[in-house]
């Protein structure tokens, strides 16, 4: 009788008993894992529902962007468009020798800019009043911050005009192009 035979017999017997036990233990461990995963899934679903509600609430409470803007133009041309609009309005009001300079700009939203403009020219009372009424309509996206009229040395119906304005401008963003990598 060899030692190998002596040890192999009980080993085989043991294996036949261990196999079902090991399988049962594996099933038990797997059941626990499935249970833990189910709980995590339930928690995640609860969190998703909570977050969806928060999204709906936040979207409902979202304030509209300030506006309407005076100018809507693509980003590179906002300043030029603003100058053009102010010049046209000044000319329409009757102001003369109008020159508009953009002295500063600052973004207040990704698609909204506040531009500071200095308008110089000459004005008489009626044209000044017309221009002021256009600015003062309130919804034109333009604010008159300061106006200075200086009488010329020689008698004249017009006086030198310098006006500081703030303009609300919107950047016209084209909608994103559909990706061509999708096999279009």
């Amino acid at each position, binding site marked *: *009788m060899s030692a190998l*035979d*002596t040890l192999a*017999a*009980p080993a085989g*017997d043991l294996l*036949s*008993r261990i*196999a*079902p036990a090991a*399988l*049962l233990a594996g*099933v038990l461990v*797997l*059941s626990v894992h*499935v249970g833990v*995963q189910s709980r995590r*899934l339930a928690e*995640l679903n609860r*969190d*998703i529902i909570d*977050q*969806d509600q*928060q*999204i709906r609430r*936040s*979207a409902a409470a*979202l*304030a509209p*962007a*300030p506006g309407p803007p005076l100018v809507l133009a693509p980003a590179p041309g906002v300043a030029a468009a603003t100058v053009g609009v102010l010049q046209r309005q000044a000319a329409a009001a009757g102001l003369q020798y109008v020159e508009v300079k953009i002295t500063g700009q600052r973004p*207040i*939203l*990704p698609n*909204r800019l*506040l531009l500071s403009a200095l308008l110089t020219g000459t004005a*008489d*009372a009626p044209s*000044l*009043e017309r221009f*002021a009424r256009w*600015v*003062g309509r309130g919804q034109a996206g333009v*604010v*008159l*911050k*300061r*106006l*200075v*009229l*200086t*009488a010329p040395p*020689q*008698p*004249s*119906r*017009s*006086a030198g005009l310098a006006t500081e304005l*703030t303009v*609300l401008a919107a950047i016209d963003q084209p909608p994103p192009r559909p990706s061509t990598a999708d096999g279009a």
Partner: protein
Amino acid sequence: MTWEEDEPDRLAEAGDVYACAVELPVSSVRRARSAVALQLDRLSPLPVADVAFDVAALGPGRPGSTRFALGIIARAAFEPPDAPALLHRQVEFEGRRLAFRFRDPGRVQERTDSRRVVGGLVSILALCTGLVLLGFDRREARDVAAASSRLDDSAFTLDRLRALKNGRDAAAQAWASESALQAAALIPCAIQRLGGGRADPVYLTSFQVDRSGVSGRFSHPPPPARAGPPRGAGVTLAAMAGAGLAPGALPPGAASAPGQVFTIGARACR
């Protein structure tokens, strides 16, 4: 591990039991039974199929070995219908009284077979359950991954919305503070107040408007060098006194000194 096998020695027969001594490289009786079962054909005086056996410890043998007494009984002892499945026999062997317990090999085999069947069924059941659970587990893992991803997307959207809300609030505030500086409405008001139909000419030398109000400088009557019709932004200040404008001391027809200053407060034009 090797060991020298002892031939069964000191074969004894006590009643229906044959006994002999064997030396095995194991220490427990249970293992000794398993070892003997493999070599029973060489140790038994009867065919293996016709016997039952048991082992009892005798004591230490050579180094690494233990001496056991092997008891063998003919299977015929279990054949009577009322025979028990377990037979007890006391045997005198090497001057010691040994107790053997013989199990009916047929019933032992039946029990082993049934145990194997049950074990097999349990294994198959466990395997099937395990496979089902594994499939369920995989599906849940996919669901958890999808839910996590969706939660991340929701969190990103929520952050964007919050940032957008904060940005819009700040933008609205910035625009509101700029709009509060609006002074345009003061100009028509001031012109209306200054430009009454009075005939006494006032020469306006400067005119300034901001949020706080309107201020200006005028001369009345116009300085000689600037003689002419009322001008200075084209505004006649004839109605200043009537409108209650500062300096307020301009009764109709009264003369004011050149360089006199006037002011219209923002409140007056609301």
